[in-house]
């Protein structure tokens, strides 16, 4: 009966072939480790965000007059509304935590190198979309931090020479941040950006299944195949990966719900306390701090304190911040190393990757605390180190001594 039904479908749709190609028989390298879980967990979080987002939408009111009150309504009156909202805020943080780990995995094992350049570029687009989703979503509750974060971020466009002021008015749709601005950010957050994200994630996975997964050794598993053409150092996705992915999802959800139930504010970093106050365009909060996942870039923005080449410090800070996010996309073309994985790369690559991680974490801290002259200097140094990882890569990855790469994956 089931076979007959499947045959009926298969005559009209490549159903079995698609399931086998992308799920059951997808050959996954046998030496994938814990770092490879971030990808599947990102898909889980995407589903959580879509579900909780749709439910929030049922009670949210996208107007300057009603937005803040509708969030309070969701929190107090809608049954389990607070859980749905905390799910969405915790999901936003989880999204960024996981994509940082996912990107770091790619940087560690050279997963962006040929033939996975396009896969990496697609992943970078999802990161960019996530940044946009995070920002637009943050404005929607229309609290003090929502309003002033929008003010600070949008005014960056105003610092662009010549066209800045007009561009800013065009983006805001008003001469100040207003309900008009809120409405367009709302449209982006609930329609445009999620649609784009789903589409790009879909193509990202298609591209992954075309070129195949990289692995911690960075060796090409397709070199050695068995009689049926299946790579020797791989196992079928079902049941092997599905089973341990399910286990990982379970462990992940334990942490996720622990934060969601018991620590939804995340000490003021997930939901900032200032945002419990309704937006007031005549009163600026004492310290404008972005959510934790933007603090590295916020630190870069603030690190540029001097004008240069006739451009204002504010505009240059904007450029540096944007470049900090954009530069990842160039990674496949900056890496001149003959080997992929950090395991076989030379000492310089290891040093610069460690420097990058330290800089990223340090900038994350510096962006979260009020600036002082000493901290500004520290932020400037770490910003230089951050970019050094990328911009010096063509040199250090080319002229270092790498270890010999084995033919087959190494276990144990």
């Amino acid at each position, binding site marked *: 009966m089931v076979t007959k039904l499947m045959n009926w479908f298969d005559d009209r749709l490549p159903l079995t072939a698609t399931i086998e190609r992308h799920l059951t028989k997808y050959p996954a390298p046998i030496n994938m480790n814990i770092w490879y879980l971030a990808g599947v967990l990102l898909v889980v979080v995407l589903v959580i965000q879509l579900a909780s987002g749709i439910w929030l939408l049922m009670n949210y009111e996208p107007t300057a007059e009603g937005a803040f009150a509708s969030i309070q309504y969701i929190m107090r009156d809608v049954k389990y509304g607070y859980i749905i909202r905390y799910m969405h805020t915790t999901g936003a943080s989880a999204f960024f935590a996981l994509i940082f780990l996912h990107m770091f995995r790619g940087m560690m094992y050279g997963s962006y190198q040929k033939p996975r350049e396009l896969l990496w570029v697609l992943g970078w687009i999802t990161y960019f979309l996530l940044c946009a989703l995070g920002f637009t979503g943050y404005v929607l509750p229309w609290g003090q931090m929502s309003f002033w974060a929008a003010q600070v971020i949008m005014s960056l466009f105003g610092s662009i020479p010549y066209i800045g002021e007009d561009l800013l008015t065009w983006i*805001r*749709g008003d001469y100040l941040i207003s309900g008009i601005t809120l409405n*367009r950010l709302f449209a982006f957050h609930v329609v445009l950006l999620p649609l784009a994200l789903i589409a790009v994630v879909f193509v990202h996975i298609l591209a992954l299944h075309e070129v195949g997964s990289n692995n911690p050794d960075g060796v090409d598993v397709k070199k050695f195949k068995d009689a049926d053409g299946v790579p020797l150092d791989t196992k079928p996705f079902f049941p092997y990966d599905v089973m341990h992915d399910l286990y990982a999802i379970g462990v992940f959800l334990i942490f996720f719900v622990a934060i969601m139930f018991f620590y939804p504010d995340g000490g003021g970093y997930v939901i900032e306390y200032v945002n419990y106050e309704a937006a007031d365009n005549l009163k600026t909060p004492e310290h404008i701090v972005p959510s934790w996942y933007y603090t590295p870039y916020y630190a870069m923005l603030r690190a540029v304190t001097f004008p240069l080449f006739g451009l204002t410090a504010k505009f240059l800070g904007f450029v540096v911040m944007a470049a900090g996010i954009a530069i990842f996309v160039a990674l496949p073309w900056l890496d001149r190393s003959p080997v992929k994985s950090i395991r076989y790369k030379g000492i310089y690559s290891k040093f610069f990757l460690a420097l990058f991680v330290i800089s990223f974490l340090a900038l994350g801290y510096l962006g979260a605390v009020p600036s002082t002259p000493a901290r500004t200097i520290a932020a400037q140094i770490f910003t230089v180190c951050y970019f050094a990882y990328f911009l010096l890569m063509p040199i250090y990855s080319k002229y270092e001594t790498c270890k010999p790469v084995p033919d087959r994956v190494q276990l144990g």
Partner: protein
Amino acid sequence: MQPKSPPNPGRRKFLISATSAVGAVGVAGAVVPFISAFNPSEAAEAAGAPAVADIGKLAPGEMIIVEWRGTPIYVVKHSDESIKEIDKNLERLADPNSETQVQPDYAKNKYRSRKPGISVLSAVCTHLGCAPKYYPQLGVVDFDSEWQGGFFCPCHGSKFDLAGRVYAGVPAPDNLAVPPHYFKSDDILVIGEDGDVA
């Protein structure tokens, strides 16, 4: 069998380019409403329109508050007595010559005003956006022993002189902004437009 090339390749090429060009024009036209809809709407433009104030009845030393684009604008008519104080103690000011561009060029002068004796200032403290209070009296006040008249921000204690110039050593970094404005006649002040820049 498909022919290797169309019977008349030149005509085919022309038709393809002509169709593409017309299509591109159509797309460009279709984009216009989408781009334009992002601009401030008629309602937003009306709300952001210039504010007009009659300052004919303003006595020396008095101030009125005019709302323009959601922010309060202070319009002060200085008394001869207080205007004389404006050049005293310049060393207490952070930017006495208005080097930072927070005013139109026509207000980059000693009084930071288009018309001497009339100050038009944005009542948004350049520190964190509170509204500084107007203290025209001279001499000893709560927060200063040699006050020359000016504005004091109650939030974090920033001080500005009568021309809106910020004192040194206070949290606010810049002078109070001067919005674009012009005088339609002697008494009619228009805030939000430069008028004829002399």
